[in-house]
């Protein structure tokens, strides 16, 4: 174990860095340095400072005063830097985007969770600082949701949201929406209604709009407000057609709406579309199961219309004089 860095060392080192942030670096406590020394075998991340300086570091923690504590690779001293001086943290994560996406698309959610969870567990508290891990964490969150681990989603969301509360960037909004969706899945309608009410609407151009549309539609469906739900589903489909994660849900619910409003051919067309665009999703399977029912309703509906038409024709036959021929503007 190396001795803690002396004040002189810190000052000298600061001179080497062409930035003012170094001047703000504080000498950390002895205990922290000892702890840091234990962890210094491998650098955890590369920090890029606003002044372009780059350090290989292990993160030790953060303070309530808005600073990040770190130990530089090969050194035992612990440094604190204000968050505003940090441009990016690149964590050394051995994660393969392509592979993770492939697993996710193949619905191997547990594998995605397993791959991401362990290396990112300690990173949640740094999510408010620009970094390369957030995308993975959000992918894990979505995997948890699709794996129906709703309680875990809620817990993770709350952990994510805590450090992000002051920033409220896209990760915060996504976590908030994922939490709402999980609560909705657990049937906690009133609570989610309040949460959605408090939230600002998400702009349709925002990639998170699909989640918002979906949760709004879910909320309205929970109160049997089909019409309003359909409005949100339609927006999900119209504006989120490249979101292959949520689009199937929008399509399925649109199909249900058209089915409910007796637009059976439209509903059937959507089931066919889902067979292509949402293949292998649960939504597509549900749509496939719904198809025979829609077909039979369509048949019955056509028969009813035919009968009504015939009856109206018979009625006209009986009393042709009852046709209202009063001149109107449209004449």
């Amino acid at each position: 174990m190396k001795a803690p860095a002396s004040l002189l060392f810190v000052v000298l080192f600061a001179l080497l860095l062409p930035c003012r942030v170094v001047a703000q670096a504080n000498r950390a406590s002895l205990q922290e340095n000892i702890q840091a020394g234990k962890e210094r075998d491998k650098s955890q991340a590369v920090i890029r400072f606003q002044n372009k300086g780059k350090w290989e570091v292990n993160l030790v923690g953060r303070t309530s005063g808005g600073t990040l504590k770190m130990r530089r690779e090969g050194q035992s001293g612990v440094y604190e830097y204000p968050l505003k001086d940090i441009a990016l943290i690149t964590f050394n994560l051995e994660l393969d985007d392509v592979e993770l996406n492939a697993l996710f698309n193949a619905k191997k959610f547990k594998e995605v969770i397993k791959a991401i969870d362990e290396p990112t567990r300690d990173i949640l508290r740094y999510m408010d600082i620009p970094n390369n891990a957030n995308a993975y964490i959000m992918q894990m969150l979505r995997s948890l949701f699709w794996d129906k681990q709703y309680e875990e989603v809620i817990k993770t969301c709350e952990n994510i949201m805590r450090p992000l509360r002051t920033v409220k960037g896209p990760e915060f909004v996504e976590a908030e929406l994922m939490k709402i969706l999980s609560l909705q899945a657990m049937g906690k309608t009133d609570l989610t209604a309040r949460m959605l009410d408090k939230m600002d609407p998400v702009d349709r151009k925002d990639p998170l709009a699909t989640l918002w549309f979906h949760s709004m539609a879910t909320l309205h469906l929970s109160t049997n407000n089909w019409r309003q739900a359909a409005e949100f589903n339609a927006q999900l489909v119209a504006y989120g057609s490249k979101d292959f994660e949520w689009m199937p849900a929008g399509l399925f619910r649109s199909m249900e709406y058209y089915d409910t409003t007796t637009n059976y051919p439209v509903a059937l067309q959507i089931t066919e579309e889902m067979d292509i665009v949402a293949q292998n999703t649960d939504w597509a399977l549900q749509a496939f199961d719904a198809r025979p029912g829609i077909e039979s309703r369509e048949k019955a509906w056509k028969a009813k219309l035919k009968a009504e038409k015939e009856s109206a024709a018979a009625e006209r036959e009986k009393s042709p004089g009852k046709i209202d021929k009063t001149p109107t503007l449209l004449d």
Partner: protein
Amino acid sequence: MKISDVRKLEDWRRVPVLMAARKFPEAIQLIDIAVPIFRKYMDQYPQFKDFTEDSIFNRALCIHEQEQFDQSKEAFKQYLVQYNRGRHRKPAVILWADAHAAKEEWEDVLKVGGRVYKEITLNLRENLAVYGLMGEAHFQLEHWEQAIEPLYWTFRNGSGDERIGAATYLTICLVRLKEFKKLYEFVPFVYKTPARYDLGLQMALVEEGDEFYDDAKSDKALLLFRLVYKKSELLIQLDALLNDLEQNKRRMLSAEKTKAGQTLASKARRYDRSIKRAKEQLVELKEFEDYDQEIDIRIGNCYFELKRYLEALYTYHAIYEDYPDDELAQQALYSCFTTAFAMKDIDRALHHAYEYVDAFPPPKSAFWDTITLNIATIHVEREEWQKAIDIAEKAIKLKPDHSVVDNMIYIAGYSHFQLSRIIKAMKKFEVIFEAHPRSQFLQPAQYWHAQGHLFEANYTPGREELLEFVDSYSIGPLYEDAYYRLGMAFYGEGDFTNALSTFQAFVGEFPESILRSEAHAFGGDILASWGDVHLDTALEQYKLGVETAVTMVQTDYATMAMARLFELESNHEQIIELWSSYLIKHPEEGNFTEAIYWIGASHKNLNNWEKALNTFYDGVVKYGDDPYLYGIDMILRDVATEFENLPDINSPTFDPSKVDRANMDLLLSLKKRLRDEMMSAGKQRRLTLLMRLAALFYSITSEGGSDAGILSAFMRESYITNAGPISLVMMGREAAKRGNMDMANRIYDHFLEEHHSSDLALEALKGVAEAKMEQGKFDEAAVYLADIANRFATMEDAAWANLRLADIYTKKRKFEAAEALYTLVASVKEWSGEATPEALYGLGQAKLAQGKTDEATAYFENIYILYGGGYPAWGVKAYIARARALRKMGRTDDARTILQEMVDNETLAKMPGAKEARDLIAELR
């Protein structure tokens, strides 16, 4: 071996080092020196055979690394010719293919690649290189089907960019092959990588989508169009993709520099090709016209065609929001309107139509004419007349050369007509006559213009125009209608003979007409007006009116007319029979509560009080809670009169011999039953019934009684909608009595809005007019007074309304109008009565106000001479008014004389104004 050769070969050992340092020309130089030596001593040194082979391969590799592909192709070929089964056979073949690929000689890549597959076993890495190249070659040659297998294999077995590249090509192939299911298997993967921004992929999506779109296969087109990225986004992303590729290539080179000579060059080359492709795409994309809005419009159209209207609507609206200044924004917003219309969501359609009108006024508006016409038509259909007028006028004002200007003028005229602004309407129709004589709206304009005359009671010009119309157009629904109206015009002119014959001819010509019932009813009215001899024929006509009625209004009119005829003949049994059969046919529609009233009233006239009062009671209890059933109010009014006339048995003047005790008991019993019913209606929350009965008891009890209290409890805004007409009238009166004129106004406004066809509408109109006058809102009051004067012209209430109107004119010093009305009231026979002295008094006051005191005294004199006996109150007023006028003229003695004359009159001296007269006499002395 010669020493010099040995030295040369020592240099040869530096070849790998030079190659690693990418010093390829130097390496080739050493190889070229070494190879002849190896060949020379090959027999002596067997290992030189291998050295020769290595050197020939390395030489080819060095050429290849210098990107001299024409030469490297030859060099690898030479190597393979010499070393058919050589040690470097596999990389040589791969790099040979790679050289062809670098020269974009895709057919050759396939030839070489195919040979590899026939003859050589490759490991995974080598396979990826060769198979990847073959996939790319097939792709470049647009062998979409053949490309799939190698690309799919590369996608499954490759890694990183290799995989993404294969997926991109594969996706394009699937788009080109229209293999939707397989396409969407890949798309979720590709669309999570930068490959989604590949212009080739985007162009494939657009081109294939267009093909489906043009073939009206909206479902398929939609699947492709939805994947297209916008140009603006692509430009940014292609730039980023280019940077990524360059960065990845550098990373790959630095990571794999130690493996030079195998697949590195090929990999780098593939990067280069991708970079070149991205650069070309970027240039190509920049030259493209903007297609973003066009694609979105097409997506919207696809949704529309598939009847997925909500999705279409949101898609269209986003175009307008995102590109408000673009040419297509107008089309998009217009499409929002048509989509909402197709959804039958007319409110939404109107919302978007007005959005368009506000956003794109002429001259930049492409759909102005169509959209304004549609808006106006919708308003007409919804009977939103003022809105129809506003949009029609705005449409023409902002675009005088509107393509359907005649239609818009006609709509404005028709709407004015519906708002009873007949003169304005007629003026609009006249514009069509003059400016658009060939318009298809000329005929209806002529029809409505003639109708306008009838509405304005100008029957002669109306009749003339209708005659001309009937002569000009002998077919169509307007002809039929005009024919009928012609009968009405004759009727209006007082030419009843022609009117009757026209109605009869109408019935003959149009036996199926929906107006037939009305023609019969009019005929009945004419015949009935000709006296007793024609009553039977009139009755026949009314019966035919009932039989041919197609609406409840027609049934009700003819039935009511029959009932009145029976009433004239005091034929109460017939009335009961008539309304009973009405109730059988229409148990709960039309005037069924009026029927109940008539039946009850007829029983009463037949002195069958028990049946009468039971009928009333049952009707009230059963239907009294519906404010729109006006027969209940008629019953309650009748009952109120009976209750008021009940003698007070506790009074000392009560004479039992003068009353029918049984009937009185029945009435008292009814009173009790209705009071009980009022209490139970309260408990059952039958508010309308409760309020009706409260109004009944309020009207027959003195102020401050408990019943007044019940009505008072309902003197709140929230109860107005529950109240039926009789309750509203009472509430209005009560509010006015309390001085709460705002409340009174609100009550009467609600009455006239909701219950204008009630028999009590007159009461409400009078109430509101009085309330307005009380508040000094004379202009507003004048509107209601004029309405009363017009709607109830034959009733005394019209005289009252005209007098109040004249009073207002006097106040406003519009003496000419005031005097005309006073004169009118004084001259109408039907209004003779108290209204006449009042009118004369008004005339006198008007003259006084103008300083014409002498003329005024003449009117006052006329009053007490002609009407003083019949209407002593007016006599007193006239005496006093004349005396004051005379005093003003300085004729004090004359003033005192006439006042003395008044107080000497026994009747007048007892009138309330007599004291004022006596005081004035004292003053004059």
